[in-house]
């Protein structure tokens, strides 16, 4: 029983691997990077409008993180039960299949793009890795590029966050949706942002016990702008859906609280939850211990935009202190020929991503758009900005750190080494801290510790000025990552010496 109409045969059966039509043939009109809601909508809309598209994704199945679904071998006959709006996905996937059949869209799954190269006017080269060997690489040529790479979770460290059993909220959901597994039986969900309610509701529906959802904000931010909320009833229904699943399973929502420590030696066995003040400072004396065998934690999402920022694309600072791509009303970035849609333009959820994907496709094809679509985008964007503002981390979160809490998980750099770099060695920004301590220089390239390091260095996400004046957040600069993912050295060598042992690159 197929789980969706759009299962891909995988990289091996796809075009676009070395020497195949996608690399050797005529350039595509449009290359879309990311097959989540935004990228799927963009590719099928662009194909509807007559463009020949390549749709690249690092994963083996379309849908991205939002519509992540079980592998076909697991035989899920009701994958819809893990998703809101599953029919929206199957609709897009069905359109994609039709366009693949007619040759309008080539789906290149298992292709992780690590660099974008602008070889000339309307002449892009996308460099992708498809596996560990030197030959596992592909170069895709296209006249225009649309970045729909989505987002990854923002993490803030706390004592014990490196224990096995402490997982990201999105990770718990991803492992559940794709592999039908849970990290434990009694799972505390903590952090901040709407993803927490979605994660908790999936976990309880799938049989886990969730003793508490611990949310750092008090949600009052939403109530202050009722007009924006009333304009997006679908969002409210979705929120209420999670809420009723949580109620039914007796899950307790603890607002203005945080997990300030995870306990255990080889794996997590309990967490300490404390109340937070308005600045997210833990209030002494309010700690209580909750037994659990897993913790799913996350503090909102960060747009994944390094492919664009490495080309100098301008960014803006969102109300929750993340860097997102600056785009105009036609979804153009400041780099000619490069469009963006969805979370890369600021986190806002699947509905907004799909709307922006459609808009961007029209813009690339140079076609007019229905004004209803434009209105829908501005309504959903307004809601996204409101949500972002209410879940912005308060500067007081560093109050739950201890000197020996690891901030960088990869290089095992604790808080006191970072503070030493800042206070004694005078490092005034994240870059200098990184050079002095190696924080952010490991495998994940600072994806897990970046916001925390920036904050401890006195700049970036969630530091604020502590005045609570409501002034806009300070400018956040995106992290620099010359490669969007680690690339096997043999592939890099082959790119640089196209006629060497690795064979021609394109």
């Amino acid at each position, binding site marked *: 029983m197929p789980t969706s109409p759009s299962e891909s045969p995988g990289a091996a059966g796809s075009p676009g691997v070395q020497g195949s039509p996608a690399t050797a043939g005529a350039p595509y009109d449009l290359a879309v990077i990311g097959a989540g809601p935004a990228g799927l909508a963009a590719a099928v809309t662009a194909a509807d409008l007559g463009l020949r598209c390549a749709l690249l994704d690092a994963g083996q199945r379309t849908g991205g993180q939002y519509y992540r679904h079980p592998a076909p071998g*697991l035989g899920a*006959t009701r*994958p819809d039960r893990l998703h809101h709006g599953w029919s929206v996905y199957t609709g897009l996937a069905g359109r994609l299949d039709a366009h693949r059949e007619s040759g309008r869209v080539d789906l290149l799954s298992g292709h992780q793009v690590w660099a974008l190269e602008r070889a000339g006017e309307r002449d892009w080269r996308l460099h992708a890795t498809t596996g560990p060997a030197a030959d596992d690489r592909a170069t895709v040529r296209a006249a225009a590029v649309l970045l729909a790479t989505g987002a990854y979770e923002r993490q803030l460290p706390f004592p014990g966050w490196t224990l096995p059993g402490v997982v*990201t909220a999105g990770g718990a959901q*991803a492992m559940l949706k794709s592999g*039908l597994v849970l990290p434990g039986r009694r799972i505390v969900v903590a952090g901040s942002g709407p993803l927490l309610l979605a994660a908790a509701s999936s976990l309880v529906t799938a049989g886990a016990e969730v003793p508490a959802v611990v949310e750092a904000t008090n949600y009052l931010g939403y109530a202050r702008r009722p007009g924006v909320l009333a304009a997006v009833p679908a969002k409210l229904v979705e929120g209420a859906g999670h809420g009723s699943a949580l109620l039914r399973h007796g899950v307790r929502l603890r607002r203005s609280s945080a997990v300030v420590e995870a306990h255990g030696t080889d794996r997590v066995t309990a967490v300490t939850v404390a109340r937070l003040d308005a600045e997210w400072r833990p209030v002494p004396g309010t700690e209580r211990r909750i037994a659990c065998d897993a913790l799913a934690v996350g503090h909102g999402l960060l747009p994944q935009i390094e492919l664009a920022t490495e080309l100098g694309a301008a960014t803006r600072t969102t109300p929750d202190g993340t860097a997102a791509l600056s785009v105009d009303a036609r979804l153009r970035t400041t780099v000619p020929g490069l469009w963006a849609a969805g979370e890369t333009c600021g986190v806002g959820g699947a509905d907004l991503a799909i709307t922006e994907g459609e808009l961007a496709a029209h813009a690339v094809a140079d076609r007019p758009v229905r004004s209803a679509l434009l209105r829908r985008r501005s309504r959903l964007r307004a809601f996204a900005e409101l949500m972002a503002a209410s879940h912005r981390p308060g500067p007081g979160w560093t109050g739950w750190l201890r000197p020996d809490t690891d901030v960088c*998980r*990869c290089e095992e750099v604790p808080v006191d080494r970072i503070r030493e770099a800042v206070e004694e060695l005078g490092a005034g920004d994240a870059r200098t801290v990184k050079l002095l301590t190696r924080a952010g220089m490991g495998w994940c390239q600072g*994806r897990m510790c970046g916001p925390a390091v920036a904050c401890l260095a006195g700049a970036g996400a969630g530091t604020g000025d502590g005045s609570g004046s409501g002034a806009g957040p300070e400018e956040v600069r995106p992290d620099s990552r010359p490669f969007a993912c680690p690339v096997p050295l043999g592939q890099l060598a082959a790119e640089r010496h196209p006629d060497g042992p690795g064979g021609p690159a394109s």
Partner: protein
Amino acid sequence: MRRTPADLVRAEPGPAHTIEFDGRPVPALPGQTIAAALWADGVLAWRTTRVGGKPRGAFCGIGACYDCLATVDGQPNQRTCLLPAEPGTTVTTQEGHGRADLAV
């Protein structure tokens, strides 16, 4: 009886197969990643860190954090949250470096 994720989606998986983790058999369902098969068996850690020798397993579940590295069929530094568990796959706990040949 407790509800499981498989109950929720009415899964009718193909027959289970076996992978080997540190010399012992671990069941896996077709389509599951190595990390998923290990979680299903109650295993949460399959790596120790280079500096502190601390246990680690899957954290982000989507290929971004590199905490879930293990030695798979003799190849160190493999992200088990992305790699499918194939019949007979051998997974060993990775201690420290493994071998780092990626440009980051």
